[in-house]
């Protein structure tokens, strides 16, 4: 146990102090559990009140449109009667009322009750239908009534949409605040305990050249201060021994040998070797934790996704509706620039470290948003998206490099898969929250205003990264070097990962989930919110299984199997429309694809260092992540084109089945090649 400072391995510290690690785990779990329970309780109560208020205040408004239609119809009847036509002799009432009913699915029936005459079009529903009664003034004290039977399904659908809206808000609030909790719990609970644990571990391992920085006045701070005091006293005693030995050797030359031996025994204890009499003892290195990258990444992805719901609409409005491609082009430009910039970003990480590149990436990201807010033409808007895409590429690659570096310098049980799961979960949560918040924000502050919010949030992400992340992390993840791309693609295992796993996964995601599903659901008569909710199933399902995938990668040690089985499961799910009704098969397939891709997401990143260690040693792991990202982007761009082409040529079911077959075949190929590699 009593070894010098050089033999201290950071990942062995939790073995030295098992009690502290267990205590931290218990405390974190306790805090997370209690906070989540309270969060669900508080937001649940608020949501219930919101729903009740909505029913009370908004539902009456639903009948106003029918009332306005009724008032317009009544006015025409009144005018005819005012011209002298007796109410019971009015001609053409049925076609007139039928014309009003036609093309208005909100109305089931219209009934006109006049003295001595009753005209009805459509069939009123018994029971639940809402009846809007509009008076018809016929002069001389006579009156009739126009009854409009409102389709109850419309009201029910509206109420159901509102409940889902509230549930989505609840989910978004929970996800967003769990991200905040992850950072705050890391800073408040984990950080002090880990500092205690680390200082104890270093001292226990015989390292007397260390001292905790910035100890506070709380319980952990007081303990750290005492340990600092012990280290200081030991170092003072060591200096005293050195001085004493010097005095002995000077005054009694015959005792030089024993004095030197006594001093050597002390020096072997792990004191700072280079320290002179007044030199300070060494200071602890900054703590590196995946949570420190998680918060800036979440904040940035949230900022980026705020505009997801309206980018095509904004592009079309800037273009004036003249150019058919205007809606899709900014999205394609963004994806293309991300694919091109990712490898360069990886090289930059090697030079400046992950923190520096992440903070740097926030600048073009914010500049792009500002430019987008001020854009007055589609050209400027596309330029803005391209500038933001450079930021996106830099930030995501820096985060991956940081996280791949993080496990080695933190606790042993934080594996690479788990660390990569942090990336996937932060990105997914940010995307879910950003899309949901962005759609309501844009409605309130406009598209330009939403882009300004994105700019502010991405700058905040940069500042947060500079304040919380370790500046040295990630450098070793990106050695770079020339010919890296060729070397990477010449590696059979890595090539299989890109071509048989990354590309098909995105092909299925964008081709099936984002392109074919909305079209077929629309064809089945689903409304836009219903389609949105079914597409959201993908993200929700994925979030459920990301951790499971990380566990398979870390604990079971089978990342390649997880990737292959996930590809196969996606493939089988896409064959479901062949045997099940579309209304069932589509949501089930979306959910299964989400679950499967959730399982594969962390292993796909975690497997890279183990898959090609020599390649990683040569070019670093970050450029490989960059190439993996290029592959994903190619799949993302190809997905909608392939899916739309197949659907046009052979129909929806066949198109989905082909995508499923591609996923199955590529999963099998990856399994065969990946195992050999």
């Amino acid at each position, binding site marked *: 146990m009593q070894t010098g400072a050089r033999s201290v391995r950071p990942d062995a510290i939790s073995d030295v102090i098992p009690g502290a690690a267990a205590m931290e785990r218990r405390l974190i779990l306790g805090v997370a559990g209690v906070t989540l329970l309270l969060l669900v309780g508080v937001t649940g109560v608020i949501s219930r009140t919101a729903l009740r208020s909505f029913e009370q205040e908004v539902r009456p408004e639903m009948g106003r449109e029918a009332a*306005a239609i009724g008032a317009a119809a009544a006015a025409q009847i009144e005018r005819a009667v005012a011209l002298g036509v007796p109410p019971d002799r009015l001609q053409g009432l049925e076609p007139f009322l039928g014309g009003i009913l036609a093309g208005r699915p909100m109305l089931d029936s219209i009934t006109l009750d006049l003295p001595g005459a009753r005209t009805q079009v459509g069939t009123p529903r018994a029971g639940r239908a809402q009846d809007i009664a509009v008076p018809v003034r016929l002069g001389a004290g006579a009156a009739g009534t126009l009854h409009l039977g409102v389709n109850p399904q419309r009201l029910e659908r509206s109420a159901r949409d509102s409940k889902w809206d509230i549930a989505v808000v609840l989910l978004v609030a929970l996800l967003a605040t769990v991200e905040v909790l992850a950072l705050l719990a890391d800073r408040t609970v984990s950080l002090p305990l880990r500092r205690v644990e680390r200082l104890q571990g270093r001292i226990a391992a015989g390292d007397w050249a260390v001292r905790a920085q910035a100890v506070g006045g709380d319980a952990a701070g007081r303990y750290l201060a005492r340990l600092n005091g012990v280290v200081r006293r030991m170092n003072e005693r060591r200096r005293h021994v050195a001085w004493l030995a010097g005095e002995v050797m000077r005054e009694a030359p015959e005792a030089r040998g024993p004095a030197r031996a006594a001093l050597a025994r002390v020096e072997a204890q792990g004191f700072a070797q280079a320290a002179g009499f007044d030199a300070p003892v060494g200071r602890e290195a900054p703590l590196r934790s995946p949570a420190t990258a998680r918060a800036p990444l979440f904040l940035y992805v949230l900022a980026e996704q705020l505009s997801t719901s309206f980018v095509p609409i904004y592009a079309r409005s800037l273009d004036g509706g003249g150019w058919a491609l205007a809606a899709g082009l900014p999205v394609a430009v963004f994806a293309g620039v991300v694919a091109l910039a990712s490898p360069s970003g990886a090289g930059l990480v090697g030079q400046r470290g992950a923190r520096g590149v992440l903070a740097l990436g926030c600048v073009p990201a914010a500049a792009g948003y500002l430019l987008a807010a001020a854009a007055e033409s589609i050209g400027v808007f596309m330029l803005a998206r391209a500038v933001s895409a450079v930021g996106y590429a830099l930030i995501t690659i820096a985060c991956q490099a940081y996280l791949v570096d993080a496990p080695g310098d933190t606790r042993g049980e934080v594996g690479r898969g788990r660390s990569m799961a942090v990336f996937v979960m932060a990105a997914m949560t940010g995307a879910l929250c950003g899309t949901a918040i962005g759609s309501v924000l844009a409605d309130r502050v406009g598209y330009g205003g939403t882009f300004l919010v994105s700019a502010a949030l991405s700058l905040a992400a940069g500042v947060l990264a500079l304040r919380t992340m370790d500046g040295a992390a990630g450098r070793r993840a990106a050695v770079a070097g020339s010919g890296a791309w060729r070397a990477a693609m010449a590696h059979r295992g890595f090539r299989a990962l890109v071509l048989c796993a990354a590309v098909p996964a995105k092909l299925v995601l964008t081709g099936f989930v984002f392109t074919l599903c909305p079209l077929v659901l629309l064809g089945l008569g689903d409304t836009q919110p219903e389609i949105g909710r079914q597409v959201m199933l993908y993200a929700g399902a994925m979030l459920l299984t990301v951790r499971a995938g990380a566990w398979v990668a870390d604990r079971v040690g089978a990342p390649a199997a997880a990737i292959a089985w996930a590809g196969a499961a996606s493939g089988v799910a896409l064959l479901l429309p062949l045997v099940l009704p579309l209304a069932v098969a589509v949501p089930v397939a979306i959910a299964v694809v989400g679950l499967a891709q959730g399982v594969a997401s962390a292993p796909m990143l975690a497997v890279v260092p183990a898959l090609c260690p020599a390649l990683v040693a040569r070019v670093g792991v970050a450029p490989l992540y960059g190439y993996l990202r290029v592959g994903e982007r190619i799949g993302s761009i190809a997905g909608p084109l392939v899916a739309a082409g197949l659907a046009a040529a052979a129909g929806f079911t066949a198109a989905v089945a082909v995508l499923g077959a591609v996923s199955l075949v590529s999963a099998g190929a990856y399994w065969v090649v990946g195992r050999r590699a």
Partner: protein
Amino acid sequence: MNAVPFAARLAAVMVAVLLAASALTVSMDYLRFRRVLRTQADLVYQFVANDLAGAIEDSLNLGLPLAALQATEQLIGRRRAAEAGTLGIGVFDPAGAVLFDTDRFRVGNLLPPEWDRPRGAPGSQTEWRADLGDAYLVGAGITNAFGQPAGGVVVRYDPAGIETRMNAILLAMLRTALLALAGAGALAAAAAVLLTRRHAAWLARATAQLDAPTGVPAGPPVPGTEAVMAAIAHTGAVLDAAEAELMRLGLGAPDADANGGAQRAA
């Protein structure tokens, strides 16, 4: 902040997270409901605008020019009176000149640009909506018998109805949120104390054992600190032994002993 007890910091974190979640829930629900209400109100007034545009188109189809349709003035006046919340209704020609308006002073003027179709939209666009700040506006295009744009109808309506309903919803949500937060805050504080009790006790005992006047704890080391205490004891013993041996070797050097003693005392 560092001097604040650990339990208090933890409770503050939990309350901050609850506060953030509540604020997010309330504000997003508020904004979503606002959108639903606005959409609903727009539908009502859009119907009014479309209906008026349809009536005007019927007259145009008889061959009369828009400016000559004098009955339009009465028509829009009646619809304004019939639909509660309507602030004004105007009819304009393809050049944007206001031909009829329930606010007479607008007649003859050009339509404010923000009232017309959105920038870049084609003249044939049949429906549009705008937020004028103090009023909401919906517009409906008028086309002649040849399908050519012949002008439009704009209906301005009062946002007060929406505001009143939204204020009621917001108040109900805020009241509930405050009550729920008060209860949850108390629970969070209690939970923080309970959760950190063992941890605080451990740190206090670990600190106290380092405060022992002899530098050596009286009893067995606090669990979890055995290794660090063993290291302290071991290194202390090595230093003690070295000092003792050097003192023994240097017994003939009284100055050195005196200086060393003074340093150790310091």
